[in-house]
Every structure is written in C-alpha cells, then in structure tokens.
C-alpha cells in the first residue's frame, strides 16, 4: 500500500459523552435530548447535515392529538398500531409511542415547525392507511423535510446558545458530517467508542464515548427495487451485531405498495400513500378497482365493500367505511403483486394509481405538489391528466436492534438504538405515519437513556483498546491492500447481492428459494471480503461501497435466516409455502446475534405477554384472530364470566 | 479564505474553487435576453426623450386628447385647453411641459424592482445572465449611495398613483369634445387602454404589495387587507409583463395623439 493510502501517524481523536450515529429524525432528536441533559454530544452523519433519509417521508407524523376528530386518543392509536403489526409488536414500545407522540409533535412547533392548520388554528391531521381517525400531522406531502429541517434548526439554535456562553458553536453539540462509522469499540463488556472515516478526505477519526446511540435507519440498499437511498446499508444493525447486541424481527420488511416503476432509473422511488388518502384508487389493466377483492377477513368489518361506500367515505367518515385502497401496506403490496402476476398489470409491470379522474387538476397540485413534480420531472407524466404506474418497493425494515423500550438500550451496556434501526415497535408491519412519530418518541428516549446511563457511570469510563483501533484501521483499508489485488469491483458484488435478495427473499418467499439465497450469500461474503478498489482515499465511492458491503451482507443474512425460520405469513413476511397467519407464531421472536465475522446465529424467544389493562383495550373477538386460546385467559371479557375465550 | 483574487473576466477562479477558466459554460443563447432588454429600453428612452422635449403635437383640441407625456401640462407654453392644472412653469426649450410629473414617473420606473433587474443585467452586466461572470471587480449592491436610494421606491409609487389619477382624469375628459358634446373615437379607446394598463402596472408594484398587506403577519385578523394582498400578489406575478406593456401603451398612445395632432392621420370616430 502506498503511503498516501496508508497515511501513517496519529488518528484524529474526540472525546464525547454521547455519540449519536445517524443524523435523521431519530438521531437528531436523541442528540437534542442528550445535549438538553447536559451531555457533550457528537452527531455523526454519512451525508451532509440535513440530507438524511427522513426527508423522504411524505405523508405525515401520526399522533393522537384529536384535532380533527376528537374521538381519537392514545388508546385508539395504540390499538391501530398493534393491529397493523399483527400483535407481534413490543406492546410497551407501542404504548409509549402512542402516549408520547402528541407531546413530541407539539414540541416541534416550539422549535419552529409549521404544520398545516385546522380552521381553528391547530395542527391539521390527515387520514392514512390503518389509522382509525385522521391522525397524521403534515405539511403538504413534505412532512419529513419539515421534520428534519426543524430538528436541524433546533440543533443550530442550541449551538447558538452554546456560542453565546462559550464562544464556540461546537462546544456541546457538534455535527461531523460526511463521516462514516465502520466499527464500535467495546471494552470490559460495554461501549467505549467508535471508529470512522471522513468521506471527503478519507482520514480516520476515533470517538471515545461511553454511550453510543445508533440511529442509522434501514437496510433497503440490499434490495434492487427500493425507495431507500444509498445510506440505507444497515450500518446500525451490523454495528450492533458486531458489538454483541441482538436483532429481532428481521424477517419483516415492508414493501411499500406504491413505488414508481418507470423509468428504470427511478424504479422504486416512493409514491406517497397520501395519493390514496386523498382519493386515489388502484386499478388493473382491465380498469377494475381490484382492492375490493383483497380485503382479508380480519379487516372485513372496517373496510367498505362497494365502490359507492368507499367513495362516500372521503366526504363522510363517520357513517361510511374506508375504501380498501387504505388497507395496511402489506395487504396492498401483496394485492398489487398478485394482480401483476395474474397478468393484469400495467405496461411496465405495475398497476395504475389514478388520481386524475378523482380530483380536479388544481386540487391535485395543491394537495400533492411534490408528487406532481416528481412525476412531471422524472417520468414526464402529468398526474392531473393520467394515471401513475406503481408497484411494490422495499421501503422499511421492521426489524432492528433489540432494545429496552423505556431506555432504548440494547443488550450491550452503553449501546442505544432508535428509529428504524431498532426493532419491536412496529411488530410485523408498520403503519404509515408511525415512522416519524417513532423517530421522535424513541429518539428522545434514547437520548435521555444515554444521558442517564452516562450519569450512572459516575465518571468511570471504559478505555478504548489501542489494538482495536489498529484492527479497525486495518479492516477499513483492506480494499486497498495487496491482499485483495485483482479482486472484484464492489459495484458488481453489490448488484449481485441486491438481485439475490430481491429475487429470493423478496415480497413473496419460499423455503427453497431462501435456502438458495443463504448459499448465494455465503458465496457473496467470500467475494465481498476480497473486493478491491482503485484510486485514492479522498471521496472514493468504490471504497465507501466496499466498506458498506460488509454491513449489507450481514443484515441480508439476518433477513434470509429469520425469514426461512418463520413458517407463517404475517405482515411484512409472506410465505408462499405457509400462506396463513399462525397464532402459535405470534408470540415468538426470532433473535439474531453475530457468529464470527460474517455469519449469524438465530434463537427463538418468547414475547412478553401484554399488560392486562392494555390487553383489555381490545375486544375479545378481535384478539381471537391473533391469539391462541390459552393466551386469552386474562382478558376482561373472560374474567367477567364469559367463556368465549376458550372456544378458539 | 485569505487569498481571494477577484474574478474579473472569469479567467481566474478564486483559490480553492474548481479551476475553470471559462467565463461561463452555458451553451444556450444567454446573451439574447439582456440584448433585447437593452435594445427595448434604449429605444424607448430615446423616443421618450425626443418627445418630451418636442413641445408640440401633444394635444388634439377637437377631441380633448392629451398625451400622457404632457400631462399635466403646466408650462406657460401649453395650449390653454390642454392645461387643467394651471400654467406656471416657464416656457424654455430644456424644460418639458410636464416637468412636474415626469421626474417622478422616471424615478418610479427606475427604482421599480422589475426594471432594476432589467437594467442591472442589460446595462450594468451585473450579471449579464445567470451563471455568466460579471466584468466588475468590486460589488456592493444596493448598500451605498446612490443605489441605496432604491429604497425610496414606495414614495415614487405614491407619486405614480397620483399621476395615474391625473391620467385617468385626462382619459375621462377626452370623452368630451371641444364643442361640449360626447365623443368616442379610437383615441379614447387607446387612452383608456393605456390608463387601465398603467393602473395595473402601478398597483402590481412590489411596494404596493407590501403596503396593502405584505408587511403584516396576521392576515387572519385583517381579512380585507388579506384580500387586497392576494389581489395585488396575483397582479404582481405579472409585474414584468405589465412593465413592458405600459411602455408599449405609453409610446403607442403618445404616437397616436402625435399623429392625429400633426394631421398625419385623422382619428377614427365612432360617436361624434
């Protein structure tokens, strides 16, 4: 290796109380909280400050404020969330989420957020799939942007406060942008720091800190068709595994039903659910609104059975049931998949999403401005005149780091996780709008948890082992070394990985295909270890990808392994060979841990039973769809003498 | 940022920036719009200057047509029938007959937010077009005298509103013929069209937009101001078009009246 590549000498070092990895909604909210609790905090971001994937969230942020329909409450929100996740959710997380989301949204207004308003001046809320009442605080269809900008500006305001006191903007909270963490340091069984490189210069940097918050988002870049950006390479998932933490629910991936399917270069880019919330309908090539054929039994009560009733719902939601286009995302995605497979798809392999015939052009432009521009500018399609072509796209991973619900701490002391990279909150399927509120609720909890943890240490911190630093450095430079000379192009290996996951562990899964996938992944792992890159360390995309590949591979293994293990279909996990939901699987969590450099170990773990008063929020009849007979024993209906619970 | 060599002709990029010597890499005809603006404004100014100092053919007595370039006519040299506000300025060749108003009209347009853009680009080349380096070594924008005076735009707007009233008055008077009867000719239509365009341009002014409502933060408590602001805002999006339209209608009106007054053509009469 040339000296320019190796760059011997001291590595830049920073000491912090809390290091937050990821500058999306969860990371920024965590950092704000940690700083508010008096902790010196660093925010590490792979991209520029304010560009995180949170900007892609369009529809809104779910919080039961009851501004539009006063019947809403945290309990209704809680029920919707559990229902959406098919009762596999960590109920404590779902409870905290539903209870705290309104406060988190209101807080944003004090930071300067400007949500759309109701006529009486409160935050307006919109309908969304799976939510009983209008619940999503929003700003047109760019809610994610508002959220990230608001949090970004709050951080700036904290920095201005610090500047007034210390003369240094960065004294208590600093953003390291375009900086990628490649390893976590664990000493004496707890977190000691992290190792990173600056993307711009290629220089290494180490952060010594007793608490690390992972807020790195999802894993979509392991798939070919995805709404996720290049950042979504499962870094937090993989870092947690390698640090000794565990992942749960990794078999559950949400395929958003409506991604763009054409032109090829934008395939996968999201078409917001608001299109359907505002009246858009799905049609197949025969012009039929096919969603009426796909209402599952568990939802029969809540959804309209005729087009007339569905259409009436937009004007009068009290007296009509909602149209089936607004079923939870997994249902809609599967339905579209089936239509395309049955040969009733659109020319480019999707189905038609029609808003043009449902709303006036100026109304469409007003309600869905960024969708209008997205199609106009990327596909040359005028959505006020013609239907969009849409199809499922890999959108969100429900699985993630297993954490304590209240503190967001993982199995590893000092390692916290929030947002998409933590698991449990959404169960087997996430409702639209619950992601932004998840970021805020658990971002704050992770920040607070980390601060409390640091306080609890009483000044005693684990030291980073110097050998670990050397090791991390060596690992990071491997793609440049002579050991990999003549190795493969990382872009090629990445494409192979994406294709494998897309084709073999995609939206509909089969045992034999997943076994093939596991074999293929082993093969790709070998090749990934020897990818080689040319050029220099400054902003070298080949090198960056080579390092990200490691993470994607480990995460893909987790997905494939867990998906093969779970022999039922539930939420974001659909098995062709086990097509129905099985109550015996509801209480089973599949827990993954690292096994050596690139292998994982899977064990089954029992889900904790729901607290009785939460359990009683549901009607027994509904629970019967999900629970086994003996699990229903503690329900209020059961205690009051009814014996219905035993008959299942 | 210690070393900061000035870009003069786009040949040297500041230290640290991408070293690209081309003044612009634009491949379209970026020079065309500023050239057209330059030609259009220059032609108009030339015409207006000639006409302002001509001191004849500004009034058609028979039909009471007075060109806006001579309104109000307040020089002792004015034809008595054309002077509705008295005659008191001395009749010398270097003093236009409408000297009371012309400077304000000129300043209203000179400080107009649209014309500023137009002449900064087309005359001062600052910048000639987006992404094309300007030739000046120093730039201080509108922070110093005399350009600091651009901030007085609203006063010239007030004056222009007053002058628009006078122009309207002229246009109304023109419906009365010299013999006292009602008349309607092509000249009337032109005068009215000009006045309508002038009002649209004047009302669509950015200062006006701020004054009627833009400066307040609580529209919801001032529904009338909000409505006015919305109306002006809609017009304001057409401010550029109105600016050019009024140049055209002004010149056309003036030319028509000159032509009738000089006897080159006779007014097309509809009534009387």
């Amino acid at each position, binding site marked *: 290796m040339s000296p320019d590549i190796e760059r011997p000498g001291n590595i830049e070092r920073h000491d912090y109380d809390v290091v937050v990895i990821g500058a999306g909604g969860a990371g920024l909210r965590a950092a704000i909280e940690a700083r508010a609790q008096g902790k010196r905090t660093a925010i590490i971001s792979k991209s520029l400050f304010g*560009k995180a*994937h949170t*900007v*892609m969230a369009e529809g809104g942020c779910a919080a039961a404020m009851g501004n539009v329909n006063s019947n809403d409450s945290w309990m209704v929100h809680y029920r919707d969330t559990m229902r959406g996740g098919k009762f596999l959710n960590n109920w404590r997380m779902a409870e905290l989420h539903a209870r705290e989301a*309104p406060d988190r949204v209101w807080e944003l207004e*004090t*930071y*300067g957020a*400007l949500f*759309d*308003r109701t006529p009486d001046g409160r935050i307006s809320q919109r309908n969304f799939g799976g939510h009983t009442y209008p619940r999503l605080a929003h700003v*047109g269809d*760019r809610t994610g*942007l508002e959220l990230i*900008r608001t949090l970004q500006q709050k951080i700036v305001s904290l920095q201005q406060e610090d500047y007034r006191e210390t003369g240094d903007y960065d004294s208590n909270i600093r953003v390291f942008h375009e900086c990628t963490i490649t390893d976590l340091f664990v000493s004496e069984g707890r977190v000691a720091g992290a190792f990173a490189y600056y993307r*711009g210069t290629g220089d290494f940097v180490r952060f010594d800190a007793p608490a690390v918050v992972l807020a790195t988002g999802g894993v979509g870049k392991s798939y070919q068709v995805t709404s996720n*950006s290049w950042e979504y390479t499962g870094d937090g998932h993989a870092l947690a595994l390698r640090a000794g933490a565990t992942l749960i629910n990794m078999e559950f991936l949400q395929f958003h039903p409506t991604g763009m399917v*054409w*032109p090829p*270069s*934008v395939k996968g880019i*999201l078409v917001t659910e608001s299109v359907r919330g505002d009246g858009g309908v799905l049609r197949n090539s025969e012009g039929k609104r096919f969603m009426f054929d796909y209402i599952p039994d568990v939802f029969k009560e809540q959804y309209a059975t005729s087009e007339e009733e569905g259409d009436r719902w937009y004007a009068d939601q009290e007296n009509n049931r909602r149209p089936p286009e607004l079923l939870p995302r997994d249902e809609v995605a599967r339905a579209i998949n089936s239509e395309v497979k049955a040969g009733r798809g659109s020319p480019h392999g999707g189905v038609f999403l029609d808003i043009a015939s449902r709303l006036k052009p100026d109304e469409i432009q007003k309600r869905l401005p960024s969708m209008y*521009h997205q199609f106009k*500018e990327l596909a040359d399609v005028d959505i006020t005149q013609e239907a969009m072509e849409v199809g499922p796209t890999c959108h969100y991973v429900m699985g993630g780091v297993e954490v304590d619900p209240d503190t967001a701490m993982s199995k590893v002391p000092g390692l916290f996780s929030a947002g998409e990279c933590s698991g449990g909150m959404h169960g087997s399927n996430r409702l639209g709008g619950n992601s932004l509120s998840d970021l805020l609720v658990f971002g704050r909890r992770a920040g607070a948890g980390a601060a409390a943890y640091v306080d609890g240490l009483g000044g005693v911190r684990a030291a980073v082992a110097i050998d670990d630093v050397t090791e991390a450095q060596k690992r990071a430079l491997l793609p440049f070394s002579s050991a990999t000379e003549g190795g493969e*192009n990382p*872009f090629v290996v990445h494409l192979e990985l994406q294709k494998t996951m897309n084709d073999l562990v995609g939206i509909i899964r089969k045992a034999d295909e997943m076994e093939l996938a596991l074999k293929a992944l082993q093969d790709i792992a070998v090749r990934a270890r020897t990818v080689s*890159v040319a050029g220099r360390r*400054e*902003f*070298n*995309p080949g090198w960056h990808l080579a390092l990200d590949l490691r993470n994607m591979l480990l995460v893909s293994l987790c997905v494939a392994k867990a998906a093969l293990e779970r022999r039922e279909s539930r939420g974001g996990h659909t098995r062709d060979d086990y097509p129905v939901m099985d109550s015996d699987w509801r209480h089973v969590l599949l827990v993954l841990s690292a096994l050596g450099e690139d292998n994982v170990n899977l064990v089954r773990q029992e889900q904790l039973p729901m607290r009785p008063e939460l359990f009683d929020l549901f009607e027994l009849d509904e629970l019967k769809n999900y629970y086994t007979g003996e699990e229903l024993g503690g329900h209020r209906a059961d205690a009051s003498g009814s014996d219905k619970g035993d008959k299942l | 940022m210690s070393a900061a060599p*000035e870009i003069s002709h786009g040949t040297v990029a500041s230290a*640290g920036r991408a*070293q*690209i010597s081309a003044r612009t*890499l*634009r491949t*379209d005809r970026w020079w065309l719009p500023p050239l057209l603006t330059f030609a259009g404004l220059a032609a108009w100014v030339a015409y207006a200057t000639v006409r302002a100092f001509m001191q004849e053919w500004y009034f058609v007595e028979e039909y009471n047509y007075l060109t806006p370039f001579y309104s109000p006519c307040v020089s002792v040299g004015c034809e008595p029938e054309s002077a509705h506000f008295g005659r008191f300025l001395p009749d010398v060749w270097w003093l236009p007959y409408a000297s009371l108003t012309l400077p304000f009209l000129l300043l209203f347009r000179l400080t107009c937010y649209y014309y*500023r*853009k137009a002449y*900064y680009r087309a005359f001062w080349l*600052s*910048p000639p077009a*987006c*992404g094309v*380096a300007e030739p000046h070594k120093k*730039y201080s924008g509108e*922070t110093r005298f005399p350009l*600091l005076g651009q901030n007085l735009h*609203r006063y010239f707007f007030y004056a222009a509103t007053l002058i628009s009233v006078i122009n309207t008055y002229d246009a109304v008077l023109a419906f009365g013929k010299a013999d006292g009867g009602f008349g309607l000719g092509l000249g009337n239509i032109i005068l009215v069209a000009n006045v309508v365009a002038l009002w649209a341009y004047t009302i669509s002014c*950015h*200062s006006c*937009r701020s004054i009627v409502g*833009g*400066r307040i933060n*609580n*529209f*919801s408590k001032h529904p009338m101001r*909000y409505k006015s602001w919305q109306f002006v805002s809609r017009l*304001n999006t057409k401010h550029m078009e109105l600016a050019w339209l009024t140049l055209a209608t002004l010149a056309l009106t003036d030319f028509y009246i000159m032509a009738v007054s000089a006897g080159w053509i006779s007014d097309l009469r509809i009534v009387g």
Partner: protein
Amino acid sequence: MSYDARFRVWRGDDEKGELVDYPVEVNEGEVVLDIIHRLQQTQAQDLAVRWNCKAGKCGSCSAEINGRPRLMCMTRMSTFTETETITVTPLRTFPVIRDLVTDVSFNYTKAREIPSFAPPPDLAPGDYRMAQVDVERSQEFRKCIECFLCQDICHVVRDHEENKESFAGPRYLMRIAELDMHPLDVADRQKEAQEEHGLGMCNITKCCTEVCPEHIKITDNALIPLKERVVDRKYDPLVWLGSKIFKRPGA
C-alpha cells in the same frame, strides 16, 4: 433506445483540474446522475459525486450542467440532443473537494449566523394557534431542500469571493424572511437583515429564483418583501416619525 452520449466531466481537486471527455451509454428515461453513476461503475470508479435520495428531495447532487446549476437527479437526458456535449462541473462558487464534490460549509456557517425561531416565552407546547393563511408564506420557504443552487448562482458571492463574509446569500436571507413572517416569532429581524446579513447586497436579478428546483419564488416572495420591511424600519421617515410621536407600548 440507447445511444452513446458525449460527456465532459470536470475532474480535479482544490489545486488543479480539467474537463475530461467520456463517451457513455444513455438509455431511455435516464437522468444525468444515472450517467455519472454509469461512469463510476464502468470507466471512473473513483469519480467523486455527492448524491443521496435521487428523487429531488434532499438537494445533495447539485452540480453545474452546461454552465447552469442543476440537481443531477432531476435533469433528464431527454432535455439534451443526442449529439450535444454535456458538460458537468462542480458548483463554481464553493471550494472544490474533488471532482464534482464541493465544500459547502459556507452555507452551514451562514445558517448558524441567522438567529433561530424565537417563540413567545409564555406559550406552552400544544397551545400554538396559527391560521393557515398566516403560515402559508413561511411554508413556501420551508419547502427549501438546501441544495444551495441559489447560493451558487448568486453573483454577489459567485463573482466576488470577498463578499462571502458579509452576505448570507438568498437561502439564508429567505430564512430571515421566513422567521420574520412567522405569526408567532417575537424576535426583531429586519434591521439585522440589512446590517448584519447583507440584504442590501442583493440587486434582485432573480437568478436564485431561476435555479430553484423547488420553484420557490425567492426574490418576489422573500427577498423583496424583506427589503420592503427593512424600508419600513430604516428608510421610511413617516414610519419613523409615527413611531416617535405615537409611542406604543412594546413597539
């Protein structure tokens, strides 16, 4: 449907660089960013480019295409003829790091200099009441994706490096306008806009508006109204006189 296009891409660092010609395949429906990625995957593995969402929402892939600041992900190849040479350079107003990637820290520095939202001190979270018509103007400015194309094209700093010190740029002057129009913000921002952040440098030549990928009317809706508000405060003798004669409490 595919053809070979002629791309000319600036390659270099903060000291030197040059335009390099690449013949490269183009397929139907592609955007400039796709072509840059194809170059990475085939001919120039270490070609540095910054990008993120690839859907025009994050504002990362800013560059200059044929001399005009654009988002690479939103520039469709069909807007060019098959025979023309397409020149891609980094933003020319900011220091270059490598190839198409520039150091945009100027913008983050300026962002910190703008005083943040100042909520009314006694208003509890949840008690905020604002009418839609009162938030709409600021909402337009909050559509900004911070691609910094306006900051790049503005000749005040593009052609005059020395002005960077005293000029916040269109994006951050718009931020002041956004906060000044916020119905609940209590800070006084108008004089500061002129005296600290260089509003007077703007000569409203509208290039910021021309390049805005979000189609925000930066000049007409933010900068000019802000200039007019400054006039209210600084250059309007009537207002000044009025404030002396009719001193209102708190005014």
